[in-house]
């Protein structure tokens, strides 16, 4: 037999082992698709989805402690990738459980949502291991394509109150395609310069005088990535898409959709020192600075919860970018750890926050105005407490993982002497407090007399509670997570 070979690498059967989680997700996608074809049995489909993701996550967790296997031409399933595979699978499970509540009374077929979710997860897992622009493209587009479907999911429903989901999907589709084109064109330019499509090839970009094409190429890629991460000025789609999409889809987009891209970005920055081409580092700093300021300002007087979270995510991506820039400047592993920890904390609190929104919402009624939350502290104390915890974590207050994350970011920034960005972090956090506290305060007010009935949901509630506990656990005793992150750092 002819061995599988690419770019001088021969694939062996042993290479399949690190790929097992990926294969598990793929298999469950196919399984679920076929199962839907055979019989629409929602509980069974949900079970299969969760089970498949659980298996994938457990497999990844088992592979995590081992030594880093050899890089394959398209994928590197090192501990870093496995760690994030676990995280992605866990988040996907969370979203599917949260969605279970959201879609409970849906009048259309709800099984495909889980299928799309699995496929998106597949894309995200590919991204976690991507070390090549082809795998980047495949992963990114698998993720995005499935997300289009998720965002537009209730579009045919009779119960849908408006065309928001459609609008959100169309906006995301077109703008995302534009950004993909930017990335691709940039990659093409890189390829033209270096002759390599692997990330490692970026090292071959000419640095020094006459670097016009490399700079343009990298900036095109940066712009595309900035769109996916909703960095200023490519952030503008975020609130509309977040608001219009069904809450579970938003939760997915806001968590997995963001971190998957960040995982790649961090890998590229750390492994290829791409930011060494000076203007790119400056541009990244600018993006971070502007994102922090713009995101926080945009959220300031916003009344729609999903939009607030969208705007705040812009700011948070700006915070994270500080550590990315630091990762370039500093020698040590701290900034990589900082990104990892912050991402971990960020997805917990974001999923938690959207989990609360999803729990209270349904496809017929999004509970995303902050007035809907008035008096929640007295009506649903546990849920309100958890939600408050999420918001405070987003604000970076101690006893929550968000604080430790922020501490990490500051450490990374200090390490590299990024004083201006740190100043932006401080100012941005100050503005951020205002709108987080507005929500908290609403929940503390006495409940209004004509308060609407709030939905219940055990699955989503338990997800939120688990996230809340994780949030506090890693806020108070983050040592174990720190050690893990230190071990997987690139």
């Amino acid at each position: 037999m002819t061995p599988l070979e690419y770019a001088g690498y021969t694939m062996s059967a042993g290479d399949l082992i690190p790929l097992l989680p990926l294969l598990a997700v793929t298999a469950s996608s196919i399984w679920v698709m076929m199962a839907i074809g055979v019989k629409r049995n929602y509980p069974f489909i949900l079970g299969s989805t969760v089970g498949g993701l659980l298996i994938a996550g457990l497999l990844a967790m088992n592979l995590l402690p081992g030594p880093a296997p050899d890089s394959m031409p398209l994928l590197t399933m090192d501990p870093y990738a496995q760690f994030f595979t676990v995280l992605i699978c866990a988040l996907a499970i969370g979203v599917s459980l949260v969605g279970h509540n959201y879609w409970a009374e849906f009048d259309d077929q709800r099984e495909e949502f889980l299928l799309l979710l699995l496929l998106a997860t597949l894309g995200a897992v590919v991204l976690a291991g991507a070390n090549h622009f082809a795998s980047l493209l495949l992963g990114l587009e698998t993720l995005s394509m499935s997300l289009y479907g998720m965002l537009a999911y209730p579009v045919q429903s009779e119960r849908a109150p408006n065309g928001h989901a459609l609008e959100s999907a169309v906006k995301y589709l077109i703008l995302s395609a534009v950004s993909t084109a930017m990335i691709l064109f940039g990659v093409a330019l890189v390829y033209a310069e270096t002759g390599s499509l692997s990330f490692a090839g970026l090292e071959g970009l000419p640095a020094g005088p006459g670097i016009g094409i490399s700079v343009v190429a990298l900036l095109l890629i940066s712009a595309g990535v900035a769109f996916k991460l909703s960095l200023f000025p490519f952030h503008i789609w975020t609130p509309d898409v977040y608001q219009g999409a069904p809450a579970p889809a938003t939760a997915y987009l806001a968590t997995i959709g963001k971190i998957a891209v960040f995982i790649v970005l961090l890998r590229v920055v750390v492994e290829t020192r791409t930011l060494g081409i000076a203007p790119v580092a400056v541009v990244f700093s600018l993006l971070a600075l502007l994102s922090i300021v713009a995101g926080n300002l945009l959220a300031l007087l916003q009344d729609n919860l999903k939009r607030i979270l969208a705007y705040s995510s812009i700011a948070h991506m700006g915070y994270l970018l500080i550590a990315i820039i630091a990762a370039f400047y500093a020698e040590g592993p701290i900034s990589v750890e900082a990104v990892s920890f912050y991402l971990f904390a960020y997805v917990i609190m974001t999923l938690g926050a959207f989990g609360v929104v999803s729990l209270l919402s349904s496809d017929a009624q999004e509970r995303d105005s902050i007035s809907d939350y008035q008096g929640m502290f007295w009506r649903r104390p546990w849920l309100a407490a958890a939600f408050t915890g999420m918001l405070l974590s987003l604000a970076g207050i101690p006893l929550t993982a968000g604080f430790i994350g922020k501490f990490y970011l500051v450490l990374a920034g200090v390490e590299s002497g990024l004083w201006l960005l740190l100043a932006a972090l401080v100012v941005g956090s100050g503005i951020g407090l205002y709108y987080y506290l507005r929500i908290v305060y609403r929940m503390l007010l006495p409940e209004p007399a004509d308060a609407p009935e709030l939905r219940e949901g055990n699955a989503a509630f338990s997800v939120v509670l688990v996230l809340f506990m994780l949030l506090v656990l890693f806020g108070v005793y983050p040592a174990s997570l720190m050690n893990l992150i230190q071990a997987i750092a690139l």
Partner: protein
Amino acid sequence: MGAIPVEHGLILAGILFSLGLIGVLTRRNIVFVLMSLEVMLNACGLAFIVAGSRWEQADGQIMFLLILTLAAAEVAVGLSLIIQMYRRFQTVDINVLSELKG
């Protein structure tokens, strides 16, 4: 007759990319917007093929194939959304999709 320099191919791709982008910006009919997107993606494909030919590798063409697939999928999803949009708003004017703002 000299060989066409790689730069010329890239510049052509760049022009195509820009045209596509301008199309996305200026068109109100969503079908044309999708078409402009196709132009942008194909410009990328062209750039990959040009670059691949420079290094005499198949990678560029493989990327082009991937892009084709991507574009097809993109259009498929896009068109289905357009149908839904037309059903709801009886128009393909992209400006009707502006309820979400602020």
